[in-house]
């Protein structure tokens, strides 16, 4: 099997040699091949024991061992499903570039899409330090290439470079962490970590990993690349990046914490607080976006926060020696990884379909699309309800588990009580803000009347773009209603985090979820009964249509509708300067009794955290660096002199050191 895996990695080059219309099917076949192999490993490790596969690839991966335990197996399923739907969706989506883009561009795109899948597979399977880092780097580079597909647009290229730099900052943290572990224990990779955590203080090492993996995952304040990269990338790439790739950061964190045995309470508290901030502020900032994909990017931050809340709760449960809280927290986190990968990619594909038809991502230019794109609209609605964590869909299940974890810990001690109360409030506020945001997004984009002419020519996307969406919608519904059948697998993964010495309660969560599933089933039954009643009632009465009630004013136009900006206005006033909203308009003067010219009113949001953490320091760095431009003379003899000087300094330092 592993040989076929390696063969496929070479076969990816074939993408360059087939005509444009065959590139996507070939990519799909190769990706299916990869998915088939890795999923079979995943199933094997789920049903029996950890699978080990030895690679015979050259260079860094030579003789590396692929280790597939339950955690890895779970992530493999997420990766494969995410990539396959992404490639399926790309068939219809990439059609709009066929007239402007060359064949090589498509080759590059599909080649790196495959390599993104390979790299993510390697990231979750490799345990040794260097091969892991190389796979991590391939993942960053291939996603960079995917983001800059429209690189002829200058801002997209800039965004890509911004992303690339941040990914390398992340790489630096992870690299430093692995180097430290290897220096102290002599064993590279995650295996050394187990020994390191036994003998050395855990918190600094964990923080190093948390910073590195946290940038990838997008925890606030390390989130600033997400809102830039997701809108820039083609939609199927945003889908796979937000749904799957940022979960590699979560994988890293989950892997690292599995070795932790000391300072659990402190680390759990740190993770919980950072995650709470991420979830609340992620969704809070999302409300102020009027770029549909940027809004979804901020929602990724929120959901990463919710996953982190689960991890933090689980860690605190472990610190308390309480297997129930531990299992509930980690199961909620792991299930939310899957859930978010589903509804977020569905949302991005729907947003992509809207962009594909209307060529704008600005929600204030859209409206009334439900009449033109009914299927896409209903799927967007389904995913919106799911991402808000509302029943009966999958998002509710993972939040339910985390809530239950919090409530189980409320009576432990004063510190935990207050911390968990904070967690409960944070999670509730996040849920409320998410409802605020998604009713806004769905309402402005799909409901009401069209705000501009851009929607005039929109119609439902072809079935090739609907198919992947339906494929994702099915598990969203199934996990929601049949959660108790799936949860033993998730719980099986979470048992690896159980506190030492405690016996794993066999099947703890499934009996909790069973009555919930019954209740949700009954709720759907009730809905059906009510709909049937309504259908009968509607048959016997007269149905008429008319204009929307305008309080007696007959001159209503679509411009009178609420927009994304006005919808967010009351929250903006409430939160004052926290939202970072900036408005630009030409105010009406006192003598302007009848203002004649049409005035512009523009708003945009500034991410203050990004400004403080990234933009201002880099500006400062640049001003310092610019002072040294005189060194860059362009004369070769000067550069040789610098080299000589450097060697001299090193030599001198060696002498000093020897003394």
């Amino acid at each position, binding site marked *: 099997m592993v040989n076929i895996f390696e063969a496929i990695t070479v076969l990816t080059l074939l993408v360059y040699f087939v005509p444009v219309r065959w590139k996507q099917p070939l990519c799909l076949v190769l990706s299916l091949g990869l998915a088939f192999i890795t999923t079979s490993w995943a199933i094997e490790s789920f049903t029996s024991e950890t699978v080990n596969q030895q690679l015979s690839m050259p260079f860094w991966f030579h003789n590396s061992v692929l280790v597939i335990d339950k955690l890895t197996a779970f992530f493999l399923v997420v990766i494969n499903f995410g990539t396959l739907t992404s490639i399926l969706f790309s068939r219809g989506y990439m059609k709009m570039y066929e007239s402007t883009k060359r064949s090589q561009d498509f080759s590059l795109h599909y080649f790196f899409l495959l390599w993104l899948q390979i790299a993510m597979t390697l990231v979750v399977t490799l345990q040794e330090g260097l091969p892991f880092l190389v796979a991590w780097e391939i993942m960053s580079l291939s996603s960079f290439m995917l983001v800059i597909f429209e690189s002829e647009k200058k801002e997209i290229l800039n965004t890509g470079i911004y992303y690339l730099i941040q990914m390398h900052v992340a790489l630096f943290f992870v690299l430093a962490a692995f180097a430290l572990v290897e220096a102290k224990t002599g064993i590279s990779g995650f295996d050394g970590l187990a020994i390191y955590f036994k003998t050395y203080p855990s918190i600094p090492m964990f923080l190093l990993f948390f910073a590195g993996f946290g940038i990838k995952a997008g925890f606030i304040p390390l989130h600033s690349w997400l809102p830039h990269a997701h809108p820039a990338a083609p939609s199927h790439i945003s889908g796979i990046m937000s749904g799957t790739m940022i979960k590699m950061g979560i994988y890293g964190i989950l892997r690292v914490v599995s070795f932790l045995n000391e300072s659990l309470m402190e680390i759990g508290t740190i993770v919980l607080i950072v995650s709470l901030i991420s979830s609340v502020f992620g969704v809070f900032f999302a409300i102020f976006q009027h770029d549909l994909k940027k809004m979804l990017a901020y929602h990724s931050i929120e959901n990463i926060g919710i996953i982190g809340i689960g991890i933090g709760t689980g860690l605190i449960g472990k610190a308390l020696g309480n297997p129930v809280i531990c299992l509930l927290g980690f199961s909620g986190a792991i299930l939310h990884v899957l859930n978010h990968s589903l509804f977020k990619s569905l949302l991005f594909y729907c947003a992509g379909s809207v962009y594909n038809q209307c060529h704008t991502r600005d929600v204030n230019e859209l409206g*009334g699309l439900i009449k033109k794109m*009914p299927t896409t609209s209903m799927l967007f*609605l389904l995913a919106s*309800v799911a991402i*808000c*964590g*509302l*029943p009966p869909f999958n998002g*509710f299940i993972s939040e*339910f588990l985390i809530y*239950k974890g*919090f*409530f*189980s810990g*409320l*009576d432990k*001690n004063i510190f935990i*009580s207050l911390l968990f*109360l904070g967690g409960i*409030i944070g999670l509730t*506020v996040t*849920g*409320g803000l998410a*409802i*605020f945001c998604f*009713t*806004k997004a*769905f*309402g402005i984009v799909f*409901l*009401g*009347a069209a705000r501009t002419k851009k929607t005039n020519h929109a119609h439902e996307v072809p079935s090739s773009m609907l198919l992947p969406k339906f494929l994702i919608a099915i598990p969203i519904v199934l996990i929601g209603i049949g959660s108790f059948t799936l949860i033993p697998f998730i719980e099986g993964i979470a048992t690896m985090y159980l506190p030492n010495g405690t016996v794993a309660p066999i099947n703890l969560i499934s009996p*909790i979820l069973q*009555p*919930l599933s019954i*209740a949700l089933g009954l*709720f759907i039954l*009730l809905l059906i009964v*009510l*709909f049937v009643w*309504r259908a009968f*009632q509607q048959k016997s*009465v*007269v*149905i008429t*249509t*008319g*204009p*929307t*009630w*305008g*309080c007696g004013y007959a001159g209503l136009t*679509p411009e009178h*509708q*609420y927009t994304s900006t*006005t*919808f967010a*206005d*009351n929250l903006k*006033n409430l939160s004052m300067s926290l939202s970072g909203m900036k408005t630009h308009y030409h105010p009406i003067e006192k003598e302007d009794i009848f203002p004649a010219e049409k005035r512009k009113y523009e708003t945009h949001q500034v991410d203050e955290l990004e400004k403080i953490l990234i933009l201002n320091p880099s500006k400062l760095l640049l001003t310092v660096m610019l002072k040294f431009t005189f060194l860059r003379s362009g004369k070769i003899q000067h550069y040789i002199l610098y080299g000589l000087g450097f060697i001299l300094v090193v030599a001198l330092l060696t002498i000093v050191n020897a003394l």
Partner: protein
Amino acid sequence: MIPAALILLTSLLFPGIITKVKAMVSGRKGPGLLQPLYDIYRLLRKGNVYSTTTSIIFQISPVIYFATILFSVSFIPFGDAPGLLSFQGDLFLFVYLLGLGKFFLIINALDAGSGFEGMGANREALYSMLVEPAFVILFGTFAMMAGYDSFYGIFSHWHLNSSTYLVLSLLASYILIQIAMIENSRLPVDDPKTHLELTMVHEVIVLDNSGFDLGLIQLGNAFKFGIFGALVANFILPEHQSLWIRALIFIGVIFVFAVIVGLMESFRARSKMEKNPQFILTLSSIAAIAFLVALIITNKLI
């Protein structure tokens, strides 16, 4: 079955009692107790007028809103008898089901494509977001004290005989009544009597709904009041009494609750729109105080 049936029956009379009390306080005779009920019955038999702007969402939303409320009734226990559906964590399902209802009510409003309804949707979204933490903190407090996270578990371990529980019961009743007022968009957050669309919250959301759909929404609102009344009643219901006595007490509590709402509405003016968030957030802080009090009582703080 009995508790759910009781809640549904009493909540049908709820709007009638409120209107009657308000009328009597202002010196009018007022309509009969069954008038609001008759209005709903008439609406349920009427035809609909749909705006041409609306879509399928406008037709499914009222049903979903009504279903979430009707289904939430089944979780409410009756003293130490469980509700129709009772399981660990039914509390979260209750809160999130009401959230689902609000979600659909908000997009129902946005579907009409009117500025007024957008305004109502926007306010409803903000207020419901602000009010949710108060409810969750309150029930977090009870869950902590009882050690259970289902309605039944909490209320069956609620003992009125000790003074500490009495204090908490009073706090809880206050918060629940206020939450009920906000959830149902009554004074001081919203005035159901107002005729100016600009100052409405809830009324303006359903401005374009008509006939059967509007009837369902109004029936749902009545049930929502009933649910909160039943929650308050559960704090007061004594244990180990026969069903009839408890049923009588339950009906009495609901009646008093309705009278209190009527009186509060008669002597209270609506707040300025921008003061509403402050008012709603105050409830969360009172709930947080209840939590701290509970911590002190259970000897965890000191």
